[in-house]
């Protein structure tokens, strides 16, 4: 099997690191060699956050190269655009349809680009998910990231049972039920 390259990008505080931990866990359950690499330090401070996940028979490099991502999971529109050059031609972009203004936009020094998703659709296979609305329906806006992960699961080589096992093992015990519910919403959306 060729090494598979997954990326998760978002804004600090959106749960990118937890999501990557779930991905790490599932590659282990499935018996692959895996490397995960993340940028933190400033991660909680609202900066741009990127996580790389590579799994396969033998993985060397811990980062995904430009033009090599099979799946790019973006928790925010602008971040999807920022990292879109990492996508393979045949890769898929799963983007949470949310806008979070970075400080240069808030203070009027930059402009938030318009029609980001429409423009990305011209070049890539894009799945747009309004995960925040779904998460609010569930009663916990925080689990939106797991809904997005559920959508992305369709493009990775793991069974549904393995996904549910790893979520149970990774999220805080009190939140297992709601996270599983959130995952299934996403999972069933694009199967």
């Amino acid at each position, binding site marked *: 099997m060729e090494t598979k390259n997954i990326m998760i990008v978002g*804004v*600090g*505080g959106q749960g990118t690191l937890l999501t990557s931990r779930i991905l*790490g*866990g599932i*590659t*282990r359950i499935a018996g692959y*060699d*895996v*490397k*995960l*690499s*993340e*940028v*933190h*330090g*400033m991660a*909680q*401070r*609202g*900066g*741009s956050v990127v996580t790389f996940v590579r799994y396969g028979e033998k*993985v*060397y*490099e*811990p*980062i995904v*190269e*430009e*033009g090599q991502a099979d799946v790019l999971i973006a928790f925010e529109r*602008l*971040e999807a*655009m*920022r990292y*879109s*050059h990492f996508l393979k031609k045949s890769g898929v972009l799963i983007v949470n349809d949310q806008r*979070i*203004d*970075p*400080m*240069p*936009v*808030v*203070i009027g*020094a*930059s*402009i*938030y*680009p318009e029609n980001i998703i429409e423009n990305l659709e011209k070049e890539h296979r894009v799945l747009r998910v309004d995960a925040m609305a779904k998460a609010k329906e569930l009663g916990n*806006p*925080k689990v939106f990231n797991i809904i997005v992960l559920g959508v992305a699961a369709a493009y990775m080589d793991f069974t549904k049972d393995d996904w549910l096992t790893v979520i149970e093992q990774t999220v805080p015990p009190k939140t297992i039920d709601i996270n599983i519910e959130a995952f299934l919403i996403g999972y069933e959306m694009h199967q």
Partner: protein
Amino acid sequence: MQMKEIMLGNEAIARGAYEAGVKVSAAYPGTPSTEISENIVKYKEIYSEWSPNEKVAMEVAIGASISGVRALASMKHVGVNVAADPLFTISYAGVNGGLVLVAADDPGLYSSQNEQDTRMVARAAQVPVLEPSDSEEAKEFVKFAFDMSEKYDTPVIVRTTTRLSHSQGMVNLCNRIEVEDKAYIGNPAKNVMMPGNAKVRHLVVEARTKQMIEEGCDFPINQMEYKDKSIGVITSGIPYQYVKEALPEASVLKLGMVNPLPRKLIEEFAASVENLYIVEELDPVIEEQVKSWGIKAIGKEILTVQGEYSANLLRKAIKKEEIEIKPVAQVPNRPPVLCPGCPHRSVFSVLKKLGIHAAGDIGCYTLGAVAPLNVVDTTVCMGASISTLHGMEKAKGKEYIKNWVAVIGDSTFMHTGINSLINMVYNKGTGTVMILDNSTTGMTGHQDHAATGKTLMGEETIAISIPDLCRSLGIHNVIEVNAFDTKALEKIVKEELRKDEISVIITKAPCVLLSKKLSDTQCNVVSIKCKKCGMCLKPGCPAITKKEDGITVINETMCNGCNLCFEQCKFGAIEKMGR
């Protein structure tokens, strides 16, 4: 059965310390090294502590080693500078129980003030350096480092980089080796480094280095991987992974020990390949030595001394392959910002309103340097805020600093700020120092320190009183104020700046992330009252932005109800409400 786990590089280092039988660990938090201690504390067999700074941490580990147990100190690269004093001398004295320093470098500057290469410091201090290249090796190299430390009577540095510290990979778990405590035998000739003794020890250090240069050739952590001999690469650490990815056909000498260099091994490898490349991030430490032996090699002629490498970078530089990559999208930056509800934002908005400059320091509050706050004018290193302000006063006089303050956090104040404040008192400074006390070490993820009342191991302890400590230095003006009481704060800052003596203003409010949940209240915009003046945007809260029609909107999931925007609005367009 051997257990396999996915571990962060730092987690694996902690595991390595556990398996090696370490009994004492000391550190000061610093990205990317912090998680080492946060994982070591999970092993009850190890005493672990946050020391106030890296020099102290190093000395604690040295003491433990002298007494006869295995000890670890860990820190980021700039922390090694703080610890350099004891490090250089313990290199002479050597060890009793094994002594290992883990130093985490930050190529690419993900969260540091410089890009220095610890191998340079280690060469100066004549301390051996091991460099692992994934989580499994990180664990195993720590164990090897302890054996080496005891065998060669030397402290050993395990050098990591951000990409290793913060990457996760598979690790095989082994059992802990219970290392018997060594007896302490008094030996002043070895442990008291006064000139007469140190002179003798310097010869020992030179002999030791020579011995390691020879015997290192047989260390299993140095590996020759022969394939196509037309390209040979000498590399180590994380760059090894990029070499394997970009040049799978090449022969590789992977060095586990990068200081001192196993010379014969390198000469043998160099002689057996046609074209030799040296791939190392940051400084040409291996390259310059290898070239000085008359060996032809290519390195920094085609590779950068800045930032992280990647497989693509090597493909381009060595194979001259141009890979077609889509251009990077031009999008607005998303720099890190102070969190919604952060008490520092409140303090900085007052300073900004008063037109005051701040000599800054290392911590979350360094973000006061960026737009829209733009209050912090200098940031050098931990503890430097107070001393740079003092230097300005001595250069330009006390009137000059009437619109300057020093800002420092509580953890940084305990780290090295206290030394600077002592200096200011002693040398008759008159500056105003603001200690932004948020009851934690915020930037690195909420570690305790000497003023929080809790140890790393979770025990209650004396919480050193920062105001009492300042008063004990002889400072008369020590004022505590709630960081969110902007009216009181404004008045106090104006008053204290007028005085011709030292003032310490301690602004208090816990880090908003400490409670891990949003406050019970939040702020909301009453759209019809909003005059689109933008005053509420001035403090730069990431929870507030403008809609396309110019009316302010507050993100309900981000707002922490700090009321700073509520106070800014003159038109009553922002209201407080329950959640």
